């Protein structure tokens, strides 16, 4: 007998609202369906009403964890539109912050993985070590979460010798701790047994479903924007793309720890080869009519911003493709033929950021299957009409 189980939009296993509908046969998931649109904030529309400078801070607030990713991706696009070439020192500092962000994001994810696998002491220790990176980011930029280090044409703050020394000193502690976590991840049998073989995604389906970031790299695909299409100073920095061939959650853990170690290498290189000079160039207020695509390797995968300018000081259109959206199709594939108990683990393994990925609301008629994109006001009117007509609790059949 097949039963459909709804998980979410509000569920203890999920940190953000998303609706997963599982068709299960006993314990085994036969089919999965994702429903989005519970966290739509209308950011793209808002961006069209703000100036290029104001939008840096708006883009930063798409996501709390990859705030620098979205801001840099946007700023790179705007620099292309305005034909600006940021100075080398500015790009080095921008790359430094992006690598520190990757470190803090991956340490956060490691903790989440430990928590979802029932290894809560691992979660507490990784998060304690994450504080080192957060403090470094606060020293460099003046804030722990929204660094606001980018300006159009460079960065806003310079780093001095004492900050440089502090970063290099902290790297030693971080590297030592990361190696310890890699050892634990590989030698603690309960942890390995929980992660190995869960959420299998073969290389062929990862390619077919356009998986991005560590999810793709754990299926032995060497896909990394930093290598494939180098932005900022990644063409000068020596680093390797970490991959794993186990195609499961354990592989994704290993890829992330490998990336941590690569990030320490990059930070060390950046700090030792920091050129002198200006950190920013002056940007014009307006951009010529043009369109541009900016790519950026966020900690979760490839982030794409598509910007159209129309000659004014505001963008005509700004489209954001967050990495989580690219991984949804692969998540469904991973969930299939897994167990119900593995859902939080598989879903957490793509490092989902739901509010990043919520872009537009599409209404699908459950009976006829017709899909249609609607405005927020229309959606509100529809909801009011529906609730006036028939309160759902009395004789509701789910889905309403």
């Amino acid at each position, binding site marked *: 007998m097949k039963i459909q189980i709804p998980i979410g939009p509000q569920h203890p296993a999920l940190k953000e609202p998303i609706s997963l509908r599982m068709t299960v046969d006993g314990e085994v998931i036969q089919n999965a369906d994702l429903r989005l649109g519970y966290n739509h904030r209308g950011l793209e529309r808002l961006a069209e009403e*703000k*100036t290029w*400078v*104001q*939008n*840096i*801070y*708006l883009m930063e*607030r798409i996501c709390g964890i990859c705030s620098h990713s979205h801001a840099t991706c946007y700023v790179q696009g705007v620099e292309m539109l305005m034909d600006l070439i940021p100075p080398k020192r500015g790009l080095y500092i921008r790359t430094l912050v992006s690598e520190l962000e990757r470190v803090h994001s991956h340490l956060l994810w490691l903790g989440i993985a430990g928590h979802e696998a029932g*290894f809560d*002491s*691992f979660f507490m*220790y990784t998060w*304690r070590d994450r*504080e080192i990176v957060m403090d470094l980011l*606060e*020293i460099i*930029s*003046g*804030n722990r979460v*929204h660094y*606001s280090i980018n*300006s159009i044409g460079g*960065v*806003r*703050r*310079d780093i001095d010798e004492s900050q440089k020394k502090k970063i290099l000193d902290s790297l030693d502690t971080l590297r030592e701790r990361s190696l*310890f976590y890699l*050892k*634990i991840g590989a*030698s*603690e*049998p*309960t942890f*390995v047994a929980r992660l190995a073989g869960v959420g299998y995604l073969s290389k062929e389906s990862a390619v077919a479903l356009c998986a991005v970031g560590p999810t793709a790299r754990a299926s032995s695909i060497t896909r990394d924007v930093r290598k494939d299409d180098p932005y900022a100073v990644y063409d000068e920095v020596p680093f390797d793309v970490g991959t794993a061939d186990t195609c499961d959650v354990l592989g994704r853990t290993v890829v992330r720890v490998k990336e941590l170690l690569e990030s320490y290498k990059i930070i060390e290189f950046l700090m030792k080869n920091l050129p002198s000079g200006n*950190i*920013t160039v002056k940007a014009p207020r307006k951009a010529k009519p043009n369109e541009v695509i900016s790519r950026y390797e966020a900690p979760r995968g490839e982030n794409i911003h598509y910007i159209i300018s129309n000659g004014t000081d505001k963008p005509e259109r700004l489209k954001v493709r967050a990495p989580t959206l690219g991984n949804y199709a692969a998540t469904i594939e991973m969930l299939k033929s897994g167990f119900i108990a593995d859902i939080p683990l598989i879903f957490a393994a793509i490092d989902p950021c739901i509010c990043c990925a919520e872009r537009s609301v599409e209404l699908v008629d459950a009976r006829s299957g017709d899909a249609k994109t609607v405005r927020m006001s229309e959606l509100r009117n529809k909801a009011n009409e529906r609730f006036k007509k028939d309160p759902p609790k009395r004789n509701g059949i789910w889905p309403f």
Partner: protein
Amino acid sequence: MRPAAFVPELLRHIFKKPATVEYPYKKLGVPKDFRGTPFLHPELCIACRACERDCAAEAIEITAVNEAEKRFQMIIHNDRCIHCAQCVDSCPVTPVKAMDIDMRYENADFNRHVLKKSWVFVRAVLKPKVADAGPKPPTS
């Protein structure tokens, strides 16, 4: 592979101090470049409205109180402020900027209207440029 690989680490931490700080009683310091609450040096402001134009949260409001006397009022809505310090960067007054940001971060209140800060000031006049006007702050 050996079971309980994490135990030595756990045991070691029994004898260590807690990593966290009991916040309201003890406080961690903030770094010197911390972005706290913005404020105005009213004697330096030339009322060019650059900060108002660039404020991402539309938290700055400059209105003319008396046009003839060149008297202006600036209101900073701290309930809307996102502490990005773009106003400080946009301020064109040199060598000391009229907009500045301090290190206060405990701004919470039960009433959002209490967080509003306002200054009434006479517009400053930019002095003619002197060759040795002191070191310029970095144009970041």
